[in-house]
């Protein structure tokens, strides 16, 4: 039985026959001929080979036997594994992606496996750090963009600072729900919300580091110098790209979708928020 099982799966046409029958529960010879586009003799030959996996009932239709059903299930499972393998290999083939993966922290993955409490504390810590820093620098946050003009308001005080800090948290929550909703609707993926939440929070790590630099430049009055102003812009661009990459990679990893699909999602979000900022500044 084992021999006929592996022999049956050893040919592309036989795998196709199993998939066609498995997908539709049963099929007719005409349907097989139409889909496979090979000669009648070839189909009969392969159906003979599949005698332990496929059976013909009185209505002349072909059905899967128990062994055939098992073969079909294992084919589906393997196809999924192969496609995942393909994604991983492609990721490591490109030198640019190699560099990005080198920059991507594996910390959340490691901690998630071992101690969830550290993971939760890290997430809360990052949210609070971002909240305090955006409040101190007077930055209005929109995804990975910061609008720093608010610091120049004459009435800037602790109250406005607190509002900006709360706005940072609302921004994080809003985009989290947007991404979660979009992946559920478009890619039909359902994952553990808590797990995705902490992978999502990690994406803000580069931006929080940027806010720290920006705050240091601000308190040192260094932004009046052209060189530091230029450096601040460069840091913003660098950390923004890193954040977008983290978001793309984490969506792809947690939601188990292609890296291109998650890049489309993050790019649409990025362009939309940039357009909103431009629209506001009109």
């Amino acid at each position, binding site marked *: 039985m084992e021999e006929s099982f592996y022999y049956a799966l050893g040919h592309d046409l036989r795998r196709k026959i199993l998939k066609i029958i498995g997908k539709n529960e049963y099929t007719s010879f005409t349907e097989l001929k139409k889909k496979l586009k090979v000669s009648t003799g070839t189909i009969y030959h392969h159906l003979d080979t599949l005698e332990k996996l496929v059976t013909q009932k009185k209505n002349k239709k072909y059905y899967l036997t128990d062994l055939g059903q098992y073969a079909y299930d294992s084919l589906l499972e393997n196809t999924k594994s192969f496609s995942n393998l393909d994604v991983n290999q492609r990721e490591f083939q490109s030198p640019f992606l190699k560099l990005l993966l080198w920059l991507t922290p594996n910390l959340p993955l490691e901690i998630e496996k071992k101690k969830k409490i550290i993971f939760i504390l890290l997430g809360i810590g990052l949210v609070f750090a971002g909240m305090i820093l955006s409040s101190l620098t007077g930055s209005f946050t929109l995804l990975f963009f910061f609008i720093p003009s608010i610091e120049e308001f004459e009435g800037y005080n602790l109250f406005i600072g607190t509002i900006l800090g709360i706005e940072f948290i609302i921004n994080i929550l809003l985009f989290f729900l947007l991404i979660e909703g979009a992946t559920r609707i478009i890619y039909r993926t359902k994952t553990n919300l808590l797990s995705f939440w902490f992978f999502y929070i990690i994406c803000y790590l580069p931006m929080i580091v940027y806010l720290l630099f920006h705050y240091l430049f601000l308190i040192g009055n260094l932004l009046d110098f052209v060189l530091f102003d230029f450096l601040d812009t460069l840091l913003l661009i660098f950390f923004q790209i890193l954040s977008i990459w983290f978001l793309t990679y984490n969506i792809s990893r947690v939601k188990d979708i292609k890296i291109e699909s998650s890049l489309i999602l993050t790019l649409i979000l990025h362009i939309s928020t940039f*357009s909103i900022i431009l629209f506001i500044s009109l």
Partner: protein
Amino acid sequence: MKKEEFELLNLLGFIGGGMMLISEFLPWFSGRLLLQIFFITISVAIENSFLYLFPLISGIITLFGSGLLLYDKNLKLNSALIKIVSIGFLMVFFFDLISNQITFLPALGIGLYLCIGGFIFSIFDVINLLIVNNNK
């Protein structure tokens, strides 16, 4: 969706990209070509002048993205990604243009309409590509 329908809709990318590209060489405001406006601005404010090349750049990127599909049909997602980048360029251009050139709006030329048409075609093309793609 049938194969023929998909290929017909794929033309949207080529038409959209072509329209954006051609619009660069057509009058936009007060009878001036966008390329002329670019050359005028480059002598005044070089940092803003490259904005006027964005429809040309977007057109080239969109055509490249559509061409990628002719090379290999499995590159649908990559093609959509490239086109999203091109749409991003054009959106920045439109927002900046509206704020800078608002005074010229009564004397609009065919170029602007053609570019907006190309932009809409390009968006439909991306949506089509993303809907047709059923693989995760």
